[in-house]
């Protein structure tokens, strides 16, 4: 069974982005870029399924600029077998990415696609669900546990108030939540090995997909700043402030 794992190149988790002075976007010059953290969880899960003998091949896919090759190499260092870069300089929105991934799925015929539940740059939380819809496949989002058997996936999902378990027919799309696993650190030998793994590049036009953005960003602004209040000396003063000044208890 083949598993496809889309991976996105995003601003590193630890970077606090700055809005550009002209309001056209955020400043990404000289900012550290990394694999989207949820996508790391996806790669880890796919690799574990391969190590457990459930999956036979793990293919990482990234859509975007040429530098996404680094993200694919990072996925291969965790254990993906090969990479596909869908290369474009166009700003890709979730619907366009879902269409590109659908085209890749048509070629690769995976039984399972494991996406991160959201990317930490646009915080959209859409691509996996959209891919499932376009492919006509079932979806199991926000997964905290998965077992594959008999052409089905049993996926435990994080929902309001607790957990639910779905049984979905394969092929299917799953999106990963935090508690699914803890991704391993890539070892130096595996990073070296990853450099030799196959990486194919295609263009959106090769896949017959129109990736033109549907949403126009008119401006990007700083959120209103919240300023620090005061320090209280002890619990008694805190209670006094909450009761008599803020009047919230």
């Amino acid at each position: 069974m083949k598993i496809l794992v889309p991976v996105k190149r995003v601003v590193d988790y630890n970077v606090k982005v700055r809005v550009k002075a002209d309001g056209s976007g955020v400043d990404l010059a000289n900012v550290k870029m990394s694999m989207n953290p949820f996508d790391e969880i996806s790669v880890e899960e796919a690799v574990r399924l391969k190590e457990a003998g459930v999956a036979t091949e793990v293919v990482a896919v990234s859509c975007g600029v040429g530098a996404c090759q680094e993200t694919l190499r990072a996925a291969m260092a965790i254990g993906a077998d090969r990479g596909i870069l869908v290369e474009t300089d166009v700003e890709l929105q979730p619907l366009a990415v879902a269409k590109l991934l659908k085209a890749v799925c048509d070629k690769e015929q995976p039984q399972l696609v494991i996406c991160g539940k959201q990317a930490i740059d646009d915080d959209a939380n859409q691509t996996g669900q959209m891919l499932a819809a376009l492919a006509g496949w079932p979806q199991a989002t926000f997964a905290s546990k998965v077992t594959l058997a008999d052409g089905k996936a049993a996926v435990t999902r994080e929902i309001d108030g607790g957990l639910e378990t779905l049984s979905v027919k394969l092929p299917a799309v799953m999106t990963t939540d935090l508690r699914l696993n803890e991704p391993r650190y890539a070892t130096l030998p595996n990073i070296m090995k990853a450099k030799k793994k196959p990486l194919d590049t295609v263009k959106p036009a090769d896949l017959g997909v129109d990736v033109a953005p549907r949403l126009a960003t008119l401006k990007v602004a700083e959120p209103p700043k919240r300023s620090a209040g005061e320090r209280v000396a002890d619990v008694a003063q805190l209670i006094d402030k909450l009761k008599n000044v803020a009047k919230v208890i």
Partner: protein
Amino acid sequence: MAILVIAEHDNQSIKAATLNTVSAAAKLGGDVHVLVAGAGCAAAAEAAAKVAGVAKVRVCDAPQYEAQTAENVAELVKGLAGGYSHVLAPATPAGKNMLPRVAALLDVAQISDIVAVESADTFVRPIYAGNALATVKSADAIKLITVRTTAFDAAEAGGNAAPVEAVAAAADLGVTALVGREIVKSARPELGAAKVIVSGGRGLGSGDNYHKLLEPLADKLGAALGASRAAVDAGYVPNDYQVGQTGKIVAPQLYIAVGISGAIQHLAGMKDSKVIVAINKDPEAPIFQVADYGLVADLFDAVPALVAAA
């Protein structure tokens, strides 16, 4: 044209997030219709009809909507969407799960997690964990939107008597089956709708400490319990306690952060709270930069003292 709001409900009652979504819909101009898709959901439809500002409730009562799976509900909404200028759902796990599927089926973009309506086609939404606010304009004929519930006041839950109309079910796709749900029953208020939230971080040291220290405080204040991602990752509490960029976004009257350092991803989830209290022994913790009242103290002393005095 009218606007369709997808209700979040448990067949018996309407979830609070629906009320905020109705308020967001009311800002778009047009009649607001609410879709209740469920099984044996007449009571939920009745509750939706009472919500202020709702012009019509459309109810689809069929066995295939019992578990409200994304596949079947999206198929239904796809069929209804043609009559609407906008389709809105709350940005809750259920709304986030279902609505992008409808968007792809209709070949339109989705605008996720809006915090303001500028006009019928222009919306404000946070990006980069709320460190930037993007104003985006949609060119699509139907706008599909998820709504950050904390950014819109709740519509009145009573007083209205909108007509309730049945709609035909869509085909049962039969690709997904619900095996089971483990819902933790709690007497505490829902995290998303609570007026007071007591939230704990890694400073608590263990799950036992989390429960031993924070539950009495939450009980005393009638508060919901939350947590930082660090506390969830460390296994102190379940994931649905998580407040932050990738968890729940909350904006209570009072947010008490206990042993939380205040990573940007956590601040993204709670910085719109009216009053923030931080209790942390590290005076340099970033949480103090957003706290209205900061108490530099050992939480193991301060929290019990707070319970005793509150």
